[in-house]
């Protein structure tokens, strides 16, 4: 394998694992904020907060690698479009992540210590920063899908219109679709965990989870299909492969070759596989959520097990969705501007292989450990303890 292929596998793998955690952060946090608003900071809300924090830990840890890879293995991207592309990412780090982590600390350590309204405002601000984070990441990704608001100066893209970047259809459609998918994941997570716990105190949570899951899964279908006309105009080759239209693919190939010079401009045909898996999973999720809401699925033992079994489905669908979006963009890293083979750094095959193995091992071990901890916290149920309750605060404090 070449360094290019290894670097692509490394990015796809780390991004997929990262999104398993950050996707749940996005989906779960509004539900927790809603529950705290509705029911206060009691032990059931503490339980959800603890699950959220266990998940968030890996969101941070896996996110570390993401931003660094742009410099590590995709140097060409920084050279060709750094002035446009790095802006949103730097904002994501500075504004969204920095604020998010600090607010999380205030929320956890201020639990039952800060005034009630202030504490509530903090959890909603925390939710806003999580979504700001997704927004800025999608602004950067939207630029890759559909570069706007730039001008080429001396072989480098320079930002000319920040507003265009923020209203880029390559971003807005994707962001809306992603938010619906994340809510779907959060809803099924809450519904599945509540169904497993069975206790009466979880009944309102189960219902709320199903409502969010139903809205999310129906939204994800609608918003997915809504972007097809835009996709047909912006990335005709991807659209043609996804819809199986060979005539349109030939036309797109011809038009792109005329514009960008000879070459193969069709994305890999296999992206129809994750597309179909995503569609099938979303259909199944919509059916389960609606059945749970209107036909009392949670009343039976089998129905509860079905809800528990549905928890991983939205995550599988999200990974498939990313594969369709990102692999479907090939052969471009920035559509029409920078080819993937020109974006890769000149790091040696051995170095990239070594980092792939190292990141892979760390990611795998930590993800498994995190899921094990999540499962353990679910099994223990609401203990009335906050996250970090096991910290020893017993040391004497010297003067500050």
């Amino acid at each position, binding site marked *: 394998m070449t360094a290019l292929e290894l670097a692509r596998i490394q990015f796809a793998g780390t991004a997929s694992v990262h999104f398993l955690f950050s996707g749940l952060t996005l989906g779960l946090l509004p539900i927790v904020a809603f529950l705290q608003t509705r*029911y*206060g900071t*009691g*032990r*059931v809300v503490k339980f959800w907060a*603890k699950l959220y924090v*266990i998940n968030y*830990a890996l969101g*941070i*840890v*896996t996110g*570390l*690698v993401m*931003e*660094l890879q*742009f*410099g*590590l293995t995709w140097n060409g991207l*920084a050279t060709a479009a750094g*002035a446009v592309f*790095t*802006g949103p990412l*730097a*904002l994501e*780090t*500075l*504004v969204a*992540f*920095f*604020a998010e982590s*600090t607010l999380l*600390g*205030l929320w956890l*350590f201020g639990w039952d210590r800060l005034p009630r309204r202030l504490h509530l405002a903090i959890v909603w601000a925390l939710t806003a920063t999580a979504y700001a984070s997704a927004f800025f990441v999608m602004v950067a990704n939207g630029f890759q899908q559909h570069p706007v608001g730039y001008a080429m100066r001396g072989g480098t893209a320079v*930002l000319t219109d*920040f507003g265009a970047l923020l209203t880029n259809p390559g971003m807005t459609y994707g962001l809306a679709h992603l938010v619906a998918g994340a809510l779907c994941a959060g809803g099924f997570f809450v519904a599945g965990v509540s169904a497993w716990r069975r206790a009466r*105190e*979880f009944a*309102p949570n189960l219902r709320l989870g199903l409502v969010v899951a139903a809205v999310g899964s129906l939204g994800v279908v609608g918003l997915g299909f809504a972007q097809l006309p835009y996709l047909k105009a912006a990335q005709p080759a991807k659209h043609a492969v996804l819809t199986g239209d060979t005539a349109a693919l030939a036309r797109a190939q011809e038009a792109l070759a005329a514009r960008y010079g000879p070459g193969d401009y069709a994305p890999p045909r296999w992206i129809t596989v994750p597309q179909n898996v995503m569609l099938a999973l979303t259909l199944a999720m919509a059916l389960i959520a609606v059945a749970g809401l209107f036909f009392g699925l949670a009343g039976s033992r089998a129905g509860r097990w079905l809800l528990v079994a549905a928890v991983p489905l939205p995550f599988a669908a999200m990974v498939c969705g990313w594969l369709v979006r990102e692999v479907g963009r090939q052969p471009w890293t920035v559509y029409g501007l920078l080819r993937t083979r020109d974006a890769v750094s000149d790091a040696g095959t051995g170095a990239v292989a*070594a*980092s792939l193995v190292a*990141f892979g091992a*760390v990611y795998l071990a*930590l993800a498994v*450990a*995190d899921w094990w*901890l999540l499962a353990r916290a679910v099994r*223990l149920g609401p203990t009335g303890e906050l*996250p*970090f309750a*096991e*910290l*020893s*605060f*017993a*040391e004497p*404090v*010297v*003067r*500050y």
Partner: protein
Amino acid sequence: MFFQVLLPVLVFGWLAVQGADVGAGLLMPVLGRDRIVGAIGPLFLASEVWAVAALAVASLVGVAHRSYAGVVVVVCAWALRDAGLWFRCLGGGRGWDAAVFAGSFGLALGWGLLLGGGPVFLALAVMHGASFAALRAPAAVPVRRLATLPVAAMYVFAVPDTPLAAVVVILLVVAALRVPPVLAALATGAALGVTGLHLTGTAGAATPAVLAAVAAPVLPVLVFLQIALWRLCLRAERLSGPARLRAASELSTSGAGVTHDG
């Protein structure tokens, strides 16, 4: 231009703040695991953001890629160490202490690979960790004093830059004297920070004006939130003993706790 100002601030903050955690992690076998985790735990979330912000900005302006291996080592060690701390505090048990120690070790070595300077960062981190731990665990004070001479000697040997070495040695000596613990911790943090700054050099990347325009007004808010968090953690700690007892007694007297059906 914005990055030229921001990057040094973040690198300094990164090494001074995360260096405290890393150094304390290195002292786990000496000072006791529970004590160290107790010392790092409540503050590491607040310090984490400095590290991420610095490394992200360094990455974006191209400073972080001098050493491919350095980046990989730093990232893997960091992930391991953070996950160890998170997991231990979230019910994963004391087994994760090994990950915290190994991650701290890897991180300090990785700084050396990434920024240059070899094992200097390891030595400085031990020193800084000792003075940070002394803020919360007086048993660390002798460790700080004992470490001063070897660390200063090693520094002078490994870093031939005379003015820098002089500044760092003065800072280390200040930390070894009978000074208030906060001053000692600031001195060792500054020693790490100036070393990092010196080795990072200056980055020459143009910043999109819009980034500066958006980020500049937000930064004071972020700094305010950081101060609020640190104050809350330090105050909560002083209150935590009785407060936790009170919470426990409230829970037991109010029966099954808070019911949910409203």
